[in-house]
């Protein structure tokens, strides 16, 4: 099987190790990956700020690049939601690239039917539901199923798992006080579990959560799901 990688700009620039980890998991499962190098950004920042003309130009661009692939896999629930849920409204149609883009855990569990990827990660972990992954893509059990199959990993639930971390794209810098207070509530809930790691499928949430954990010297590390699954 051959899949195209959609590495969102954010991951490409700031979290390249997340992209690499996803590639290593996919290759371990015998999947051939291609990376169309013309890709840049899906347009979500513009779309969420109200610049729909700008976002539409990037949506068309994305579809031209990815329309020819049977499956496109991305290590971001948020960007996948943009492509799959919001492109149809933005473009007035559902191009193949929009329909065939999958979030990483969704691709493994729902498309391939795999939950055990042969990973080992002996640590106590709590999972943060990113809002787009949970409420746009409706993925709640998929990332948890993958985590439960990891050898040595203990998954503990936090009470505020489904509560927003406060990132929200430009919201985090337009309303920094609100955003940070939400981050504080989230991080208190994470710390209360006693977990060593908080895991999510969106690097943007993890940047927000990690930014507060480190500012407050709280003893929890952030990890993307792909980074956990890449450990053997």
């Amino acid at each position, binding site marked *: 099987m051959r899949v195209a990688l959609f590495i969102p700009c954010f991951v490409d620039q700031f979290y390249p190790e997340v992209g690499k980890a996803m590639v290593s998991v996919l290759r371990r499962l015998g999947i051939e990956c291609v990376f169309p190098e013309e890709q*840049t950004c899906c347009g979500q920042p513009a779309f969420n*700020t109200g610049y729909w003309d700008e976002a539409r130009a990037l949506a068309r661009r994305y579809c031209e690049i990815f329309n020819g692939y049977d499956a496109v896999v991305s290590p971001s629930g948020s960007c996948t939601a943009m492509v799959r849920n919001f492109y149809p409204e933005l473009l007035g149609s559902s191009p193949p690239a929009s329909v065939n883009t999958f979030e990483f855990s969704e691709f493994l569990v729902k498309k391939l039917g795999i939950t055990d990827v042969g990973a080992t990660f002996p640590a106590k972990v709590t999972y943060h539901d990113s809002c*787009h992954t949970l409420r746009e893509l409706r993925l709640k059990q998929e990332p948890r199923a993958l985590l439960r199959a990891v050898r040595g990993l203990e998954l503990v639930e936090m009470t505020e798992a489904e509560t927003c971390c406060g990132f929200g794209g430009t919201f985090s810098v337009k309303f920094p006080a609100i955003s940070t207070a939400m981050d504080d509530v989230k991080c208190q809930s994470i710390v209360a579990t006693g977990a060593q790691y908080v895991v999510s499928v969106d690097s943007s949430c993890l940047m927000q959560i990690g930014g507060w954990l480190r500012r407050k010297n709280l003893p929890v590390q952030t990890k993307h799901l792909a980074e956990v699954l890449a450990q053997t």
Partner: protein
Amino acid sequence: MNPNACRFQRAARAKAFDLRHRAIVAKNIATYHAAVARGLARFADWESARRRAAAIKWEVMNHLDRYLEEFERNVLARGGHVHWAETAAEASQQVVALAKQHGVRRAVKSKSMVTEEIHLNSALEAAGITVLETDLGEYICQLRGEPPYHIVTPVMHLNREQIAATFHEKFGTPLDATAEQLAGSAREQLRAEFLRADMGITGANFAVADTGMIGLCTNEGNGRLTTALPRLHVAIVGIEKLVPRLEDLALFWPLLATRGTGQFLTVYNTLIGGSENLHVILLDNGRTRLLADAEQRNALHCIRCGACLNVCPVYRTVGGHSYGTTYQGPLGSMITPHLRGWRDWSHLPYASSLCGKCADVCPVRIPIHHHLLHNRRNVIQRRLDSPIQRLAFRAWLWAVRSPRRYALGGRLARWAMRIGIAAPFAKAWTDHRELPPAPRETFRDWWRTNP
């Protein structure tokens, strides 16, 4: 930035790390969530119930002209009176005129957000008519000179000690008074006023087209006293409150109660069938503008249960008073720009992380957070964005349309991060949080060597 946006930012900053506020609201909302979980369990199929409710509201909104006229005909047939008000000021003037015409000196009011929307109390007081709030929460608001903090639970931000302090100051009750003592003291004040008042003022939870009835849901019985004891009853009704048939309440009553408070039914569900003493004021006040917007018309489906406020992490952080609007939280950010103007309220659609919890709990399935996205697009289309932001997005688009320019821009940004040059937007981040370390190699750099 417009003055409302500045006020909102200031208020939000003041509340964001007010830990006492956070604790009180968290406690009250936790109680709410526990009750709602029990309430939802009583529905055989909650999803079908909300689909049905959304379909009924869709039918009403798409034929609102007919349902309004049917409602009017049926109120008149029962001997009641119907007045139409296009604006808030017009509605207030109509109530004042009715009061003067009937020699009203004192009025009692049952909890109603629409009367907050039209600022009725100040209009009546300016005309020399005293108004007393009879819902306990609203009564406390009135004593404190505060607007309601929440559309359903007006004093969600207060704990018993704070309410006891207010009562101590006003009536000399003990500072450590129990909830029962406080309610007893309020009842004493209110009962006397019910008997003296000449006019009872209510809103309407529902207006039933096929019977011409007003449906009121209250938990304290004050709605009944307000409508039954004074010789005149004025009901101010937003035109979106219509349901087609009396039997629809069999669905809407439990739906509203379950999401509103977790009750299966509100304690008192009163239907007022009209008499010559009933005056209904049908209020537009911007609603027809929303009705004309096919994309967001279903925002008028809202039955004001308040669930979207309770689950909203932004509402919980900033509190109801920070918005400066009658309707707070996701609901307010959705409808206020439509009702009160884009120029003054364009910041509200942006005051959301778009987490989508609001839409998940909405009993009439309004895609609230998607409407916030639509509102943001409307703000940009009306060119109410800052020129700097507009320019920044144009430059960004120019960059990301070319992989070469994108890669160069990324390299520059990461270099700036490494040597500590903080762009203005980065400062809004770094003042509160750490930035991740900027890597030297991007994914695409790595891919070229590991394809």
